């Protein structure tokens, strides 16, 4: 059994779950379409909390994201974890943000997985897939409807890049295009 420092595990769990536990004021719910590698359908769900609750042109935020995509006949995967970002909103309502994601990755292979336990003897493995880390970055831009319409919505599109590792003893580059609708839960 490899040595795993308990304190480190607790810190990682705290980091992962912290955004969910933060105060609700100024909290946004984000639901989006995630086009993994541009061509694979997916969904992106996130909770976002401003670090400062008063609205400013420059605003930093933390969040927790849950992303899913389907690569038909290959695998499906979820990416989930905390997010940390910085956003600039122009008085016109147009905004842009930069976000860092610290995701965990879990894939599920398409079809049935057969493990060869000995020569010619196979065992079906339920929910076979792969765990990994998928840290990434997202650059996005959109429009904040609060500025001129007093509506609690934002809409944005963003391009994210991540590295999944390990992947077959190496790593894999991943990217996705998101189209997201933001809804302000607690003004």
């Amino acid at each position, binding site marked *: 059994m490899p040595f795993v420092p308990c304190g480190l595990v607790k810190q990682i769990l705290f980091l992962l779950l912290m955004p969910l536990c933060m105060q609700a004021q100024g909290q946004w719910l984000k639901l989006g*379409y995630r*086009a993994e*590698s541009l*061509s*694979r*359908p997916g969904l992106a769900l996130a909770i976002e909390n401003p670090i400062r609750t008063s609205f400013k042109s420059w605003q930093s935020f933390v969040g927790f994201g849950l992303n899913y995509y389907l*690569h*038909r*006949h*290959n*695998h499906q995967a979820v990416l989930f974890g905390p997010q940390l970002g910085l956003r600039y909103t122009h008085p016109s309502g147009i905004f842009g943000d930069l976000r860092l994601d610290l995701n965990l990755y879990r*894939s599920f*292979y*398409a*079809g*049935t*997985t*057969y*493990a*060869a336990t000995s*020569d*010619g003897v*196979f065992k079906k*493995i339920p929910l*076979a897939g*792969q765990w990994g880390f998928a840290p990434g970055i997202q650059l996005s831009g959109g429009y904040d*409807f609060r500025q001129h319409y007093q*509506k609690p*919505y934002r*809409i944005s599109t963003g391009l994210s890049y991540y590295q999944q590792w*390990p*992947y*077959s*003893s*190496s*790593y*894999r*580059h*991943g*990217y996705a295009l998101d*189209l997201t*609708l933001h809804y302000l839960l607690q003004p």
Partner: protein
Amino acid sequence: MIRFSLLLLLLIGSLSCKKEPAAHSRDLTLRVGAADMPVWVRGNAAGGRIVLFLHGGPGECSYCLRPFFEGIEQNALMVYWDQRLAGSSRGNADPEAWSYAQHANDLRQLVLLLKQLYPQQSIWLFGHSFGVELGWEFLSTGDNATLVAGFVAMNGTYATLPWLKDVQRWVMREGSSRGDSEAVAYFRPLTLTAENAKQVVKWGEWYSRMFRVGANPQWPSDDPAFVRQMKFSSAHSSLSQLTNTAQQDRYYNELIFKFDRTAELTRLELPIRLFWGVNDGIVPLETGLSTQALLQGEVPLVRFSNSWHSAFHTENEKFTRELLKAIGL
């Protein structure tokens, strides 16, 4: 606003879907040790034949080449398998443990699994380039040759040293006819032996000159059908495909120089067909002819006169016709 967004999401989602034309379709993953290797079975089961595709590289992506096997799928079951550390295979296989024997065992397990899943089908191997090396390794190990109905080998070698010498002669001949004196001057003084090949052969320098004198001017990977297929079927982007291919270093730096199944070839007794793109400079026709000479009995060598390394791409109709004929359909 919300309606518009939902409509847009649905529209994008529907564009992302791709229709599957095959009558039989099964996805599975084969786990051998730490390697999780995806396998796709596609095509027509009524023919009673499975064509198990051994892709090249090593490190290539089998399912990316699917557009070139549509004609086979209409008559037989095609099995596309991404070998360990290749294509979209996954798991944590160790690149340092790369070996021909391990690949051959992976193939054995896949054949045994297919025989359990498809007991009524006879299994033919179709190897291309490195897939031919894998095929010879597999067939000449233990009782493996009894597990399959036959082997169709396209533009691949049975032993590294004679192949390297064939390439050397081919480049000198083509270099002379094309007026590439530099390529000729580079290859002429090389004296290859089993002992010195590893030191003499610099892959980058060899391949750059081979391609310069026309070793393989048409690649399947340049074909839009391949690009579309890779885009939709591989877990990789083209960037990470390169990353994955780099995991074959042990093969290129060391093991390929020890590969020699010459003696074993002479003992094989199953039906074998050789398919060759006669203009190929990567694995020249001379390698095909010496393969033919080593094998027992009369082994047909089908020549593709307008092809180089991948006749399934450059002469697809003839390839389909000949492969179906070879497997008895």
